[in-house]
């Protein structure tokens, strides 16, 4: 009985084999082209980064760093010593990014919670308005912020940059956090309260740990957007120089290779962040996988 079945299966496999070799030509060409095509697209995406990294190792001559001269590690050794103005700009950019990320993430999370949770007057319009800073061109936002700051008599500098960055970051945080909360199972909070946790404890012990990945994603996004913002910063900075503004200024007289080095370092840090993030996501997926029927759907 079992032997007969095995033989039948074997003959089925044999019958299948020549059929597989006779696939249509078009499909075979397609299968050959697809990897090449994919490789080209990936190369297209990563070429600028590769160039940036490579020219950080370039033993350049003179002001310009556009042609390959030879390999050196010198710029890595001098990255923090050769360009004091760049260091200042970098510190400023980090300061702006940290402050605006913390403030925008806090406010944005609260708005996201309110929008996802509560029915209130103006909720519909607010849901839409929150997209405006994302949708409007940065030039427009920057110009109008400048007009606003000047008209109320604020002197341009760190404070105005931070205010501007918080403004555009809040929208991104709200959108990210709201999406996370939308999939949140309210009965988990009810269960916490049922077990004697008041509102604050419930938030601390249940709500926050569960929406934390969303908040973290929002914060990383906010930080990334802030640290390399150019357009809005240009309008609101006055005499203050952030890292992107300094690089732009330097490019007119020749970008020093230390900029490439700095760019490479920032890229490496970002890459590390992404890796950590995806690890966290994987852990969380297994956490969510078995929370019981109907939980994911959010009843």
């Amino acid at each position, binding site marked *: 009985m079992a032997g007969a079945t095995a033989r039948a299966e074997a003959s089925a496999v044999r019958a299948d084999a020549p059929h597989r070799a006779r696939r249509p030509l078009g499909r075979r060409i397609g299968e050959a082209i697809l990897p090449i095509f994919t490789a080209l697209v990936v190369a297209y995406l990563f070429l600028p980064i590769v160039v940036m990294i490579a020219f950080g190792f370039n033993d350049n001559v003179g002001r310009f760093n556009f042609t390959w001269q030879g390999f050196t590690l010198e710029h890595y050794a001098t990255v923090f010593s050769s360009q004091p103005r760049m260091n200042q700009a970098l510190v400023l950019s980090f300061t702006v990014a940290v402050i605006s990320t913390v403030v925008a993430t806090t406010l944005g999370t609260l708005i996201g919670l309110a929008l996802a949770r509560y029915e209130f007057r103006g909720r519909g319009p607010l849901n839409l308005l929150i997209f405006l800073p994302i949708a409007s061109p940065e030039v427009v936002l920057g110009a109008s912020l400048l007009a606003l700051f000047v008209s109320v008599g604020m002197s341009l500098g760190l404070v105005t940059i931070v205010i501007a960055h918080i403004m555009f970051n809040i929208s991104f945080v709200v959108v990210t956090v709201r999406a996370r909360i939308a999939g949140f199972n309210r009965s988990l909070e*009810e*269960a916490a*309260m*049922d*077990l004697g946790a008041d509102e604050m404890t419930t938030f601390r*012990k249940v709500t926050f740990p569960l929406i934390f990945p969303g908040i973290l994603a929002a914060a990383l996004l906010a930080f990334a957007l802030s640290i390399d913002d150019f357009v809005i910063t240009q309008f609101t900075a006055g005499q203050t120089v952030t890292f992107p503004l300094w690089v732009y200024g330097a490019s007119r007289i020749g970008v020093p290779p230390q900029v490439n080095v700095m760019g490479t370092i920032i890229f490496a840090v970002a890459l590390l962040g992404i890796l950590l993030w995806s690890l966290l996501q994987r852990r969380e997926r297994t956490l969510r996988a078995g*929370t*019981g029927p109907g939980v994911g759907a959010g009843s």
Partner: protein
Amino acid sequence: MPQPDVRLDRVTKRFGDVVAVDDLSLVVEHGEFFSMLGPSGCGKTTTLRMIGGFEETSEGTIYLGDADVTDLPPFRRDVNTVFQNYALFPHLTIYENVAFGLRRRKIPDGEIRHQVATMLALVELPGYERRRPHQLSGGQQQRIALARALINHPRVLLLDEPLGALDLKLRKQMQIELKRIQTEVGITFIYVTHDQEEAMTMSDRIAVMRHGRIEQLGPPEDLYERPSTDFVAGFLGVSNLIEGEVAGRDDRFAAIRLPDGTVLRAPSASVNGAPRVRVGVRPEKLRVLALTDEASSAANGLNTLDGVILDASYIGVSTQYLVEIASGQRLVVYAQNIETSGAAEAHPDGQRVRLTWRPEHTFVIGAAPMTPSDEQPEGEIHA
């Protein structure tokens, strides 16, 4: 007399224009397994959520013991809930899930460890402390949800269709388990379900709900044997209802005359004074006899109706007959397969038969007709 654990006094809940719970009053005694049974939208879950503190009442008062808890938040009420989807905290271990309530009350660690172990033993999952909810099966998660609630020794445990997501076999097993645990811990259970068998298996008393009101309340036998409305008769199992008129009554029995002149007897207590009524009898109370001399002699003192077998279906434990009586109405009969072997039907299609049953097994319902919009367990035939 011990004080009731839960008392609802004229509680109403409105969602906008919709009345979910309508002027409901209810008393649940200490240590009782009390079920609220009804179709979806009957207000049973809303009532439970108001007792738990998750919904505010629109009107009325809720008492736990003699304390008015109507306006207290859930974390200030001495009740705990087992949620329909368990609602275990996915980011915490089983240990921390079960210990959650004790931690809120700042119980010392050693005491918590001891109590969690005791609880896990009670729900027969000892040694599961370090697992996470997603590593457990549905039935195991259900037990943990129960342990997490019971560890707080609440005055009342609320259960919102806790077995709804389990498969039939596990559900049956958990029903017995739940009843065992309830007896063991002696805590009042208020259980919400739409499954009449589940409610009947476990409950001391059942409130059958419809349109935000209690349709009938009583022990399972009462509801089944003496339903007071069409809805209850139809929701708990299958029943045959025949229209008639009260023709007279004495101490024990009332006589009800059917349009064709047949007189049936029913317990006097079940007749409430309305002249036009419906006489009801459960399918398993009916006996089918072939129309012979034997039948007429056996019918002494019993209610009898003559009819024709339309259909007979053998379903193992019983045979279901569909019998058309003189008025053209069709009655359902469940005959236990005590003497038949199944292969040879005792009563073939088309046979003229006499149905007999004891007057005590007859119930009477006032003639208010059922509205067609009512949800009913469709075609569910329980043997």
